[in-house]
Every structure is written in structure tokens, then in C-alpha cells.
């Protein structure tokens, strides 16, 4: 990055605030990929991710007149992105309430939910699919609320407090959602010992 990159950003923001599309596209260029990737982790497919990321970027464009430069542009961008994702989730939730650990109400006994396992044998999958694809498949099985918390935490690096703040939920809820989601992933991904070893060797090589 050139030394005057910051001054460039300021210029681009000023132009974008006047509605300049080209300046805005230049401004958002470095954030596009991250916005798209978080959307992808959240939606689990490229088509919806594309729509959602675009929605977020359009929202940023429309609200850029409100950007006063108090926070860094990046911080401000991801604040809006989070809002868009949260609203997206609320829209989905209006259609369907679903909790991973919600007990199914049977006539007399409460049953623990069995998540349908329509995946292939993990070992086969592991051989056939890229690790990331496999992981995404598992993430896709999480309910959306859990996915959002995971994405905010692991992809955007928000603290628990920030997540609670942005999603307007309690700190305890953030913690429990995060932990349950991780626990779930852990059980699915790391249950198989062989797989476990394969993964850890892969993780080691990634470092």
C-alpha cells in the first residue's frame, strides 16, 4: 500500500458521498472479499451469498453519507454488514424458528433432537472434498443464529461483548450459542479418530 493510501480513502469517501459509483467501488474493493466470504459462511451457498453480500454493499453505498469518519472505514463497513446479516436472519426466523438443542415435544417423553445425517461417511467425504467444503457443509447444518454468531466471532473477529451489542442479545446467549455451535462442530468433525488425526496434520501444515 502506498503511504498516501489513507488520504486516498478520504478522497474516495468524499466522492462516494456525492454518489460517485466508481469511487465507491474503488473504496469497497478491499472489503468485498471479506464481505462475500462472511456471507458465504452464513448462507452456505454461493448464490445466496452473492445476493446477501450485494445487499450489504448497496446498503453501505446508501448510508455512506452518514459516515463521518469517527471510526475507521473498515469498522463502519462491518457494522453495517452485521446489521444486514442480522436483518436477513430475522427475516428467515419469521419463517421458521429452530434451535439446535430445542427438545422435540413428543407425547410423553422429551426427545433430544437428532440432526439428520445426510452426509456421506466422513472419511469418504474427507477424501473427496476439500477440507473447507466439508467444514462449510457442517456449518450449513447449524441453525442460522448459531452460524451468525460463529461468523461474527471467527470471521470478523468480534469480541463476545461486541456480538451481544450488535445482535441485541445477552452476553450469556452469545456465549452459549457460540459454545453450542462449536460443540456441535466438534462432535461432527472430530468424532472420528482417523479424521481427527488427518485434520490435525492438515492444520499443522496450514500453520
Amino acid at each position, binding site marked *: 500500500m502506498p503511504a498516501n493510501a489513507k488520504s*486516498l480513502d478520504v478522497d474516495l469517501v468524499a466522492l462516494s458521498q456525492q454518489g460517485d459509483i466508481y*469511487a465507491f467501488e474503488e473504496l469497497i474493493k478491499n472489503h468485498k472479499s471479506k464481505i462475500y466470504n462472511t456471507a458465504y459462511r452464513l448462507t452456505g451457498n454461493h448464490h445466496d451469498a452473492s445476493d446477501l453480500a450485494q445487499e450489504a454493499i*448497496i446498503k453501505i453505498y446508501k448510508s455512506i453519507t452518514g459516515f463521518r469518519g469517527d471510526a475507521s472505514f473498515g469498522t463502519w463497513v462491518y457494522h453495517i454488514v452485521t446489521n444486514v446479516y442480522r436483518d436477513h436472519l430475522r427475516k428467515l426466523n419469521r419463517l421458521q424458528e429452530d434451535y439446535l438443542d430445542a427438545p422435540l415435544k413428543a407425547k410423553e417423553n422429551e426427545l433430544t433432537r437428532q440432526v439428520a445425517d445426510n452426509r456421506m461417511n466422513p472419511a469418504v467425504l474427507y477424501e473427496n472434498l476439500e477440507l473447507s467444503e466439508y467444514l462449510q457443509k457442517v456449518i450449513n447444518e447449524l441453525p442460522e443464529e448459531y452460524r451468525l454468531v460463529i461468523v461474527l466471532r471467527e470471521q470478523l473477529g468480534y469480541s463476545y461483548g461486541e456480538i451481544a451489542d450488535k445482535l441485541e442479545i445477552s452476553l450469556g446467549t452469545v456465549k452459549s450459542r457460540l459454545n453450542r455451535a462449536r460443540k456441535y462442530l466438534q462432535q461432527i468433525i*472430530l468424532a472420528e479418530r482417523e479424521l481427527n488425526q488427518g485434520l490435525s496434520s492438515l492444520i499443522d501444515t496450514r500453520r
Partner: protein
Amino acid sequence: MAKYDCEEIQELLYDYAENLLPVRQKTIVAHHLGKCAACSKELSQIKQIISLLQNLPEEPLPQDFDEKLHLALIAAASNIDEGNFKPKAASAFGETVSEEKVEPIKLNIQDVVPKKPIWQRAYFPRSMAAAIILFFGIISASYANDYFGFWNFSSGKVLNQTSSLEIGEQPICDTAADEGAPAAAFTKAAEPNTERNISAAEGAGLGEDALPAGSTDNTTAKAFPPVGICGDAVSLASREGSGVHEYMPLLPETPIKENSVDKGSSNMSFNSHMASGEAADKNYYWQDYDYAKLMLLTKNKEDVFKQAAIIAKNFKGYICNDFYDYNKDVALTEQNSVMLDIPVDDFDNALTKLSALGDIKSCYLPDEDTDKTYTFKENSITYRSILIIF
């Protein structure tokens, strides 16, 4: 020290892994981990999961992402995506039509349409009479044409009159009506331009010659050419009158000049004129080069854009904005940026020239920008460089 069993410890392990526990609980967990193999294993798995999630590889953006985004931004900029789209009142002639004219007249249909059956309505006998007269009129006219030939369209002189008459009449000109052109434009179009009318007549004459002689459809065929010419002439006139090409295509069009209308040409339409080869402006060589893009931002756009266009031209490049009037070399943009396409080979030279246009506030030129691998492809337009001149 309070006693914790494995279940309670495992509840705390996530926080422990992320170093979120208060010191006291942290020591308790650490102490337990030293003794309990199961919980240690659990911790290592938790750490793996966190690491996996944090190190997910980046997914590439879909190929059409930028393109779609650009279109969506244009839509957002003109507010058409939220359903509050107001058609711009500005006409193609640079004249502003007031909003009242655009607004449709509200009619209460109940008031206007009577509920009587059609044959009982007051105007029925009159309209029937009119229809009959009209019918006989048409029949006799076509017979008259066949027998006496005084409505002979193949004569250029008669046709000339018809043509200008038709041009003068507004309702017939569908093309112009579609464009929402104000009446003033029609008057301009209707001004008798001998040159144009003659060639128009020739066009019509040719058109008629092409028809098989003695065809039964002769009457209709004869009746239509003037209308067609009218549409062409008006659409041409509207282009000339405006000098404004909204939504310019990526490649520049050549300006049509009055004297460039080919008298011998059998067709006056704008497109076929372009296709005639004569129109290919020698200033533009867009097919022959690999282009690099340069985005120019400036506050002093009137001067800088004009000069930038000249510099671009000198290097066989061009301004590739959506809104650009190539006749006048003026960027028709509210925005303060233009995009320049400049052949890769001359990119550095062009940049030097462009830099001389004013004080450079910032110049953002990443290495890959001038790389030849970033060649011009219509579908993968991204910005190569930014130059801000103030």
C-alpha cells in the same frame, strides 16, 4: 478451592481456550487439566475447532459479482430499486419537461363509460355512418389509384410532398412519440431539408421498386413508405438536435454530420449509415490494442476531462464512461471521475501526460496496474489505477 467435576470444567473450556476466564477459574481449570486426560483431550479438540474456523480458506468472488454489483449500484444511485423511481423529466433534447406534463390525467372510468349496450349509445348511429363512408372512401381511393394513377407514389415529386407532410404531422411518428420528444423538436424535424427529402424519396422509390410489379398488395405497399421515412428522419433529427447520447455504448459512435448524408445511399437510417464503413472514425482503434484502465478523479472536471480525452485520443485510448458525449468530448456526468482506456504499451507515457494536467493529490498505482496480463476484456473491467487531480 471448590471442587469441579469434569462436566463443569468442560463448560468452561471454551472460555479457557479463548483466555476469557477470570484468574481464579483459570487456575482451577488449569489444575484440573493437569490431572484429567479426558478434559485435556477435549481442550485440544476445542482449540482445533477454533483454529479451523478461523483459518477457513477464502472463497473467490463469483465471476459476475462485480458486474452485478455495478448494475445494482447504478440502480441504487437512481433509486429505482426501492420502487420510488421517478422517470426523469429531462427529454433527449436537453429540455426539461415539467412534471405536470408527465403526470397522467386521472379519469374516473365510471363517469366516462356509460353502461348502456353499445348499439343504444348516442354516438352509435354517427359512428356507423362514419365507418361506412370511410369504407367506401378507401375502396374508391384504391380504385382511383389503379385506374387513374394520379396518386402515383413512384414519382419523386409527389412523394416529396407527401413525405414532408407526414413529417409535419405528429401522431404518425411513432418513433418520436416513444421518445417523448417535445413538439419543438418536431418542428425542427419537419423543416424542409431538400437534401434529406430527396434522398428520402429515393429511398422510398427504391423500396417500391423492390416490390413485385402488379402485386395485389400494391396499395398498402405504396401507402407505407412515407411513414417509414418519417420515423427515420425524425429519429435522425432527434439525434442531431440533441447531440446527447445517453447510455453510450462502450465503443464510441461517430458523430453524424449534415454533409455526410450520402445522396446516393438508398437508406438513411442511422445504423446502416454507421455500417457503411465511412463512419469508422479514424481516431479510434479500439479493436487493436490491449487496454489498461485508469480512473481519473478531479474536482475541476470541465477542464481536466476535456484535456484527458484529448490525451487519451493521442495515445489511441478513449474515455469509456457510461455517460460521454463523443461529439463534443464532454463527459456527461455528475460524477467527478472518468474512466480512461489506454493501450497498455503507451500507458506510462499517457500517465505522464495526464499527471501534467494539474496538481496530483494522490496517485494510486499498484504494481499490477500496468502489467500486460491485465488486458482489456469487456467482462472483467476493473480499475487499474487511480489518479486524483485537483
